[in-house]
């Protein structure tokens, strides 16, 4: 019997590309690990830099090298998909890219379109039933 091919969700490669792009920005030193979010059972890294509207760097050479090493490891983990971009922290004039993954205790995150499709369908039915009669 022929195996049925799983339908590729278009959001998955986009989400992967965002992860790879973030790793490239880390390796190019455009962004750096700027903070850590601690939640019950998991931690997330917050990545920021001049590219995202704010800058942070080590105070001395040792700190800078240490930060570079942490950035390098984070970039590698993003490339091998052990860490994923899980969201953003958007505030006045800057945003941060938040990454986490099974390595840090949280569930893996992947691209998924059905929820958005359902939202669009609900919104469409809302418009046709509530707004259109008027």
């Amino acid at each position, binding site marked *: 019997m022929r195996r049925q091919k799983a339908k590729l969700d278009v*959001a998955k490669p986009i*989400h992967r590309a965002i992860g790879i792009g973030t790793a490239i920005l880390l390796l190019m030193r455009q962004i750096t690990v700027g903070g850590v979010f601690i939640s019950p059972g998991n931690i997330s890294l917050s990545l920021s830099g001049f590219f995202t*509207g704010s800058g942070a760097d080590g105070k001395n050479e040792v700190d800078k090298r240490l930060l570079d090493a942490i950035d390098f490891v984070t970039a590698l983990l993003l490339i091998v998909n052990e860490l994923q971009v899980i969201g953003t922290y*958007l505030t006045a004039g800057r945003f941060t890219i938040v990454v986490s993954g*099974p390595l840090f205790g949280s569930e893996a*995150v992947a691209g*998924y379109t059905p929820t958005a499709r359902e939202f669009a369908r609900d919104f469409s039915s809302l418009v046709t039933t509530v707004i259109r009669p008027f």
Partner: protein
Amino acid sequence: MMAQSVETRNGQRAFNHGVKVVPSLGAVYLMGILLATFTFFFTKPVKREE
């Protein structure tokens, strides 16, 4: 201008020797909003198969 070197923006100097790309405020907001929208609507936690 979409982006410029950090040395020429607000008199700030680059922390590292590499060139830092500094997008305009509008570009920063746009990237943030797009990333937030994508991660909110188009991602979900998945269980990894052992």
